């Protein structure tokens, strides 16, 4: 379970995140929508412990991130817009390294099973990542998340630049992980993906969570209207 309590972040005079209250249950997929600078990535970065909150608390399975950063890292996996991997290592070597950092050691067969689940072609496993497409890197990122046995998944624009087929594969995997009880917080600009994949959708603007919707209670057209009316609010 993920929880934000009055989570606030200031960068100098700029209020990047303004008293965010949010709870994401186990197995729930929560999509954060918003224009650039709305506070989506800042929220994720605080949960990952990359930046400290100015005030408020971020909790992962009831552990406060700022106090138990080392412990909470064991619980999370992170897939950014571009999954950055070591280009001179193979996909399998990257997977072994990142799962090793998380404290897991797997056999080749076990790692191949993760990449297979993530949809990566077996023949790509031993190729250097420098030859991978963005979609293939994304799949390695998913395999890493699977290998880390994460309880919480943070996705920052994960489908940006992926072709529809790859996006669809990605959505299926997230749904499967959700079924296994993984809490997911996804920042995205893709309204259709948010509608189809998320259980709940939050629309952020200028650091504040302006609206919260259940995806099954809103149509795509209505979501689009609400999104546009929120992000077009005057400063």
């Amino acid at each position, binding site marked *: 379970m993920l929880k934000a309590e009055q989570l606030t972040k200031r960068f100098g005079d700029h209020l990047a995140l303004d008293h965010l209250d949010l709870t994401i249950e186990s197995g729930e997929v929560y999509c954060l929508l918003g224009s650039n600078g709305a506070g989506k990535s800042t929220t994720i970065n605080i949960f990952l412990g990359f930046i400290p909150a100015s005030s408020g608390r971020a909790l992962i399975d009831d552990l406060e991130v700022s106090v138990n950063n080392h412990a909470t890292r064991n619980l*999370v996996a992170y897939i950014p817009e571009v999954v950055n991997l070591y280009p001179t*290592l193979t996909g399998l070597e990257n997977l072994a*390294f990142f799962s090793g*950092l998380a404290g897991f050691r797997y056999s080749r067969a076990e790692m191949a099973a993760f990449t297979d689940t993530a949809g990566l072609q077996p023949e790509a496993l031993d190729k*250097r990542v420098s030859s991978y497409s963005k979609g293939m890197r994304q799949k390695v990122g998913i395999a*890493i998340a699977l290998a880390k046995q994460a309880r919480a998944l943070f996705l920052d624009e994960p489908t940006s630049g992926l072709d529809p087929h790859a996006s669809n594969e990605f959505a299926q995997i997230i749904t499967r992980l959700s079924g296994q009880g993984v809490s997911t917080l996804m920042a995205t600009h893709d309204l259709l993906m948010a509608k189809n994949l998320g259980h709940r959708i939050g629309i952020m603007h200028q650091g504040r969570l302006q609206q919260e919707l259940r995806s099954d209670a809103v149509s795509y057209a209505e979501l689009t209207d609400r999104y546009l009316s929120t992000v077009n609010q005057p400063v």
Partner: protein
Amino acid sequence: MLRLIIQKELREIGRTGKMGWLLTGVAVLVALALYNGYAYYTDHSALLRESQRVTYEQFISQGDKNPHLGAHFGFYAYKPTADLALVDNGIEDYTGTSFYLEPHQRGVVKFREVSDATALRSFGFLNISYFAQFILPLFIFLLSHNVFAKEWENGTIKMVLSARVMARQLFAGKLLACWLLVLAVVAVLSLVPLVLLLARAEAGSLGRVLPAYGCYVLGLLAYALLLTIIGVATSLLTRNSSLALVALTGFWLLGVFLVPRLAGELARRVQPAITSVAFDDETFHDKQYGVGKQGTKDQRRDALADSVMAKYGVRRLEDLPVFFIPITIEFFEESDGRVMDRAYGAIEHNEARQNRLVLASALLSPFLAFRDFSMHLTATDMNTHHDFTQRAEAHRRRIGVIVDDFYQKNTVAGNDFWRTVPQFAYAAPGLGWRLGNAAPAIGILLLWLLGALGLMTLAYRRMRV
């Protein structure tokens, strides 16, 4: 965790094409440095040993002669090539190796290797020490400059720090990976000379050589470690491989080229060397009147004659039971010796002050500190050179006393007498003396090591996405 990070780093380094070229270049230079050092050591040590033997053989087989004239035939005292000259030949090319042993004249060390060398010698002599002082730092910086920066440039740092690895584990893993490669180069630099030393060392000399060499290797390890820490910490602090490379190579250029030259220039200006004209003028005057202004040479000779005649209870020099001329020679040898000791002492004092100024600049350049440490430990430094000249001068005076004592009672000396004149032999002092001379440089290297550890702590505390 550490093993995982080290393995990953080594794998990445191994797969980087430019690193392959770099390691090949380093291997070639190491091989050249080893060959050059060994060739220098074997050629010079054999040549000097043979020269020492030949000139002495000629001296003791010169036949029947007036003892004083025979003494003027003289022979050379050669400074043997330092045991560790295959590692570092220090200032030996510039100070010369031979000291002529003859009456009246304190020898001047001659045969400076550099005087016969081409202009190419101004680039330095590639041996192990040169490699360690100038090329090894560059290798370390090229190896380590992007070890952290690439994580930011590739964007992998977020993936890494979202795992449960701790900052200090990550730093230690990357540092150890670089250190293992540096250690491999240092191991080759250290072990091959050790094998050569063991193979070539004369009986009994290993006891003197090995402890000094062991300390040299320890110093080399500390020096390489501090440079590796500086390289890795700079990579982390800059988070940009180009910036890190510019910073590290700038530090290298300053430390290797600029600081030593500025320090040398400053030392020359602050503590100017005594010119040869002033030296000759002063010693000529002092030889005429003695160190304590005891009067002209004629006055002192008359006073000596009076005291010798009084000692033997005679009124005329012709009545002395011994020849007076050798007594005069011995008297003025002692008097002139005091003059020259004082004059050379002043030069050495001046050089020591210049050296202290230059060594102080090592606070800005660890390369200078290691150079000083290396020369002291290998006994190719100015202290050893002075020790050699003092012992050679003492030997020259000892020969003077032997010849003059003989001359007081004999006007002709044959080979039987010449063979009683002892051969000169020199061995540089042992480890304690060398470490004593190197103590300031060791202190500065330790300060640099502490500074590098401080930089490391600062860097890993700032490890943020």
